[in-house]
């Protein structure tokens, strides 16, 4: 069927605007498309088979683990200790509190796989704190919102795992290691914007803390920092896989939250597990139906057609990559990250590969691009949570967000056109051979 791609897209968009949950929109659009070329019963059975097969992967197990450890740490008082730690080292710089906000979000991203969790964990303390010290509340909310997304490329990252699955076998360990440098670059770019902003607005500078206080705060944050090193070191050194790192993170954060910080009781445990099941299954259902969708895409050769169309626009890879990025920014404005990665990886990865891009490089670019969408209107889960935590409105947060978007886009362009930014670290660590 020549028009099957358009029918898939049409049905999907129609169901989407009718507020059918995205996973069911994908599933029903896939079913309709399958029925065009496959008989009724085989189509139903094939779709069912793709759903289960899409989840039949050991690598996916990392997702419930990082969700679970995130839920535990969200309730476990770890965010506050990371904030205090960052304050001790960069609080005295110009725009100090804004920088602390960025740094704390980045550090929290290093132990959590969810940007929404980071926004509420760091924002609920940092935004009121910044307002108290004379910062504009909307600016404070914008800073938290933008910097919470750095955790998407900084491991642990559920979205990188989802990309690895969708791409058909990029090493998760390599992707995890590849994300550090781009994540830190975004963090630094955001800090630069914050410092300039704070200087021009004349925000107050706080005095440096005495050395004894610095030591005390470092000591108190140490258990949380150990988890960052545990996840990173475990994967780089190969002591365990990403999935096993997730299991370790769960056990470690449980010990931390129940034993050391004593902020989760035993009776709370089952509610933590149920929350994990719920959050995980939303992602799993998306992965299941997307696996059916990418199957019918391949069956109808749709990615091939799209590649030819895109390559027909221009023979300049720089321009095609720019078009892809602009297209993804548009997609990210409207769609959540997980479905966007699941839908666009099978379509755009072949294009990127025909331009000589490696799947690893493409994955980091894709996730960084869609990170901007997480904090952009009209649909952005991090933006929504940020506004609710910061008790402000989207319209008020947009002006201070604009220079932060610019910083994120600037780093995105570097990542897009300089493969080394994403490929150098994993190659050095021996995790990646292209």
């Amino acid at each position: 069927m020549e028009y099957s791609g358009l029918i898939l897209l049409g049905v999907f968009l129609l169901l989407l605007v009718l507020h059918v949950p995205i996973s069911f929109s994908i599933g029903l659009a896939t079913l309709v498309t399958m029925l065009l070329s496959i008989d009724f019963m085989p189509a139903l059975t094939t779709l069912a088979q793709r759903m289960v097969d899409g989840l039949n992967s050991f690598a996916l197990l990392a997702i419930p683990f990082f969700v679970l450890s995130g839920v535990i740490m969200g309730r476990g008082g770890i965010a506050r200790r990371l904030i205090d730690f960052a304050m001790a080292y960069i609080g005295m710089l110009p725009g100090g509190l804004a920088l602390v906000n960025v740094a704390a979000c980045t550090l929290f991203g290093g132990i959590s796989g969810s940007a929404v969790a980071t926004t509420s964990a760091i924002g609920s303390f940092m935004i009121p704190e910044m307002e108290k010290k004379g910062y504009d509340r909307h600016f404070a909310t914008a800073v938290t919102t933008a910097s919470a997304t750095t955790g998407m490329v900084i491991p642990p990252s559920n979205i990188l795992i989802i990309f690895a699955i969708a791409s058909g076998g990029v090493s998760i360990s390599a992707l995890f290691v590849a994300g550090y440098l781009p994540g830190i670059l975004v963090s630094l770019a955001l800090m630069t914007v914050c410092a300039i902003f704070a200087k021009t607005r004349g925000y107050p500078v706080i005095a440096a803390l005495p050395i004894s206080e610095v030591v005390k705060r470092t000591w108190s944050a140490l258990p949380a920092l150990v988890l960052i090193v545990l996840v990173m070191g475990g994967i780089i050194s190969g002591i365990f896989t990403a999935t096993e790192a997730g299991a370790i993170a769960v056990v470690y954060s449980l010990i931390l939250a129940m034993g050391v910080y004593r902020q989760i009781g035993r009776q709370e445990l089952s509610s933590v597990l149920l929350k994990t099941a719920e959050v995980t299954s939303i992602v799993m259902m998306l992965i299941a139906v997307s696996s059916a969708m990418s199957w019918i895409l391949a069956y109808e050769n749709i990615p091939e057609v799209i590649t030819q169309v895109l390559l027909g626009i221009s023979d300049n890879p720089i321009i095609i990559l720019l078009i892809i990025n602009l297209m993804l920014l548009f997609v990210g404005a409207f769609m959540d990250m997980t479905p966007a990665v699941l839908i666009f990886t099978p379509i755009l990865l072949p294009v990127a590969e025909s331009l000589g891009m490696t799947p690893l490089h493409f994955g980091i670019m894709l996730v960084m691009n869609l990170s901007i969408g997480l904090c952009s209107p009209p649909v952005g889960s991090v933006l929504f949570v940020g506004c609710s935590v910061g008790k402000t409105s989207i319209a008020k947060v947009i002006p201070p967000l604009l220079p932060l978007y610019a910083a994120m886009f600037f780093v995105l362009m570097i990542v897009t056109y300089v493969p080394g930014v994403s490929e150098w670290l994993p190659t050095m660590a021996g995790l990646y051979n292209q």
Partner: protein
Amino acid sequence: MIPLLVWLDKALSRLLVMLVAAIVICVCWQVLSRYVTHTPSAYTEEIARFLLIWSGILGAAYAYRTGAHLGLDLLVNQFSTLWRRRIEMLVHILVLMFSLLVMVVGGICLMALAIDPGQYSSAMEINMAWVYAVLPLSGSLMAVYALAALFTPFEEDQ
């Protein structure tokens, strides 16, 4: 109808808690067995994968019940309450269709193939129908929840 739903909700959440706990224990045991006893367990990898399939697909019914699945409400928010309600009914009917056709009917066909001629997993050599059984189970639960949502009077969900 209502007592049945309450019982179902409770049973489903208990089962999900047990599944997630089992996954954690299973993978932790795998790491331990590899580094402590030096004899890697070939079974835990497979058990963990199958448990994930179960918790993921069964959890999808739970997430549907709690309204947690992601969706795009930009357009419907512009409509009047009456039209919003009508569209919402349509959404539940579409979910009902998907769960019955794909998950229940498709899932049962898949189970039937695994039973006869038969298909067994590679490590534990259990029949794959046990794995596929989660599809019709979760699909039936979704169908029940969809019907419940369809027959809930309008006042109650505001």
